[in-house]
């Protein structure tokens, strides 16, 4: 288990402030945040490349705050692989084994030949595990991005680390390789039980890989939770905006009956983000909420939770969804299989290309934007 207690560090233009965090053994933990949030610095502090100005870092209950990296048994993988260019793939992988085994064999008074054989066996094993045996004799410069990243993973795994730290490991890869490596990483985590701490700014990557996600902004952890919690129930307007909740409204609860709140959206006092909806002032949203009458709240609705229809008849004349808003389509943007539909009132919906085709949606059309009260998440402002 990794435990950070009030860790702060200032380094060049980056800083992290008072971070307290617990990462469980065997967990796939993702640190999600925008560029410059201090994610890499946090990872490098766990690895021991820097020491904190304040706070403690405990690994498996042992205080490792000021232990050098070579004593932590933590594998580290950078976005741009950092394979040693002067060594072949197999020598890259054997690097850590040679460094670690020298001391151990000396202590155990074992032969150099035995040591070499053990290293060769281990190198072969990790090469096979990642399906890259054929690259063994190649130099890093002759490999593709995906191959280099696999070698970097193999090199880190060869030392059998208890923790694997991954700094944006998939960012520089194409879509197909990214998907394959994502599966590899998840498999390695499940099969080998290695604790993974993965830093990314990519929400899809975080959602697909993480057992838990920590959202990091301006050097602070602002929310920790499962991907469902982070993406459906962001703790602030800023997080909501970052995790892709494009529909953010501010309003006041006018009634709350058994947890179903009726929220009057403020005419001008919306959440203030560029993508926030701008209602005319007469709209009301129903949301499942704990907040009572008179409470000022922000309401978040994910664009993929909004359904579009030309008329209520499209739903057989009725719908269980409590929110039905009449809007005019301002812009339709194709994103491959999905289509982003922006309404003139600022509301954004993410629907399938098939649905757009079926409903024959065009810019300027009037549509109904429909979403359930459970899809609207509220937080007190």
């Amino acid at each position, binding site marked *: 288990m990794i435990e950070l207690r009030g860790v702060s560090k200032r380094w060049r233009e980056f800083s992290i402030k008072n971070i307290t965090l617990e990462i469980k053994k065997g967990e796939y933990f993702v640190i999600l945040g925008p560029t410059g949030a201090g994610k890499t610095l946090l990872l490098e502090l766990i*690895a*021991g*490349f820097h020491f904190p100005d304040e706070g403690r870092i405990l690994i498996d209950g042992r205080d490792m705050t000021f232990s050098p*990296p*070579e004593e932590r048994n933590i594998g580290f993988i950078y976005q741009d692989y*950092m394979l040693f260019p*002067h060594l072949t793939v197999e020598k890259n992988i054997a*690097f850590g084994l040679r*460094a670690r085994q020298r001391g151990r064999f000396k202590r155990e008074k074992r032969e150099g030949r035995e040591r070499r054989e053990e290293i060769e066996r281990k190198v072969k094993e990790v090469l096979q595990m990642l399906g890259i045996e054929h690259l063994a004799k190649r130099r890093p410069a002759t490999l593709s991005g995906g191959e280099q990243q696999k070698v970097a993973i193999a*090199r880190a795994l060869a030392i059998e680390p208890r923790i694997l730290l991954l700094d944006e490991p998939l960012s520089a890869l194409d879509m197909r390789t990214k998907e394959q490596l994502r599966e590899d990483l998840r498999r390695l985590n499940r099969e080998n039980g290695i604790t993974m701490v993965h830093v990314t700014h990519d929400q899809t990557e975080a959602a697909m890989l993480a057992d838990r996600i920590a959202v990091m902004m301006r050097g602070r952890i602002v929310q920790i939770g499962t991907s469902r919690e982070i993406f459906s129930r962001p703790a602030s307007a800023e997080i909501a905006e970052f995790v892709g909740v494009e529909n953010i409204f501010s309003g006041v609860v006018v009634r709350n009956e058994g947890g179903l709140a009726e929220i009057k959206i403020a005419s001008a006092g919306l959440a203030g983000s560029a993508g926030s909806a701008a209602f005319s002032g007469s709209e009301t949203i129903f949301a499942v909420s704990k907040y009572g009458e008179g409470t000022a709240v922000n309401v978040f609705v994910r664009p993929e939770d909004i359904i579009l229809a030309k008329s209520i008849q499209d739903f057989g004349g009725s719908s269980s969804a409590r929110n039905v808003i009449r809007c005019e389509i301002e812009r339709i943007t194709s994103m491959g299989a999905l289509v982003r539909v922006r309404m003139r009132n600022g509301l954004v919906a993410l629907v399938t290309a098939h649905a757009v085709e079926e409903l024959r949606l065009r810019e300027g059309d009037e549509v109904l934007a429909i979403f359930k009260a459970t899809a609207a998440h509220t937080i007190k402002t």
Partner: protein
Amino acid sequence: MKREKIFILSLFLGIFLIAFVCIALGNMFYTQAKDISALIEAAKDANVLKAIWISISAASTATLIAFIFGTPLAYFLARKEFFGKSVIEGIVDVPLMIPHIVAGIALYAVFMRYGVLGAPLQRLGLAFQDAFAGIVVAMLFVSFPLFVDAAKEGFKQVDPRFENVARSLGASQLRTFFEVTFPLASPSIISGAIMCWGRAISEFSAVLVLASFPRSAPVLIYERFTSYGLKAAMPVAVLLISICLLIFVLLRLLGTKAGSSKK
């Protein structure tokens, strides 16, 4: 087309400097080629061969010392930011700025028989004034900045994240340096060593002041020139340049090979 124009202009202007070197050295070789027997005579002259050997061995010793002490200094300067760093960097480059005759006088004052360092070291059996060690000291003083500057740039080009990864894999700082950082910086280090050696072997003024004996090649050439004229000095000069060029080209090839194996 515009790009080509700028290349043509660059080559046209650059060729001026190439021609400058080629004309100066080429003329000397051409003149000497007309009197090949004098060159053969010089190649057989024990004094000439001894002087060239002294120059080569002293320059090699100076380069080795620059390498041993300059490599850690260059690494430190490349990796660490600290108050007064620019002052240290300035001190390293001072020998490049001052006239070498001045450097010779400064060194003489320190390393002569009665100098601050010369006197105690002489008592320990290490003499500098008019001794091989004096030639090495003079050469080292004027040439080590070239090594340190080149090695520093080489270390700067090695991404510190390579070192981070190596250490996370279990390598100590020392092992990381010798197995990762140094090999990756080696093309610049080799290049710096070649420049350092070249500068050392060509040093005349500082060597003349501190240790005109035993005769190093430039001192011998100067002596023959002032005593017997151009005809006597030129064969020795041509011989020295030929040997230096040969060594220089071989070392450059070695450096290029080392550089390409890092890719």
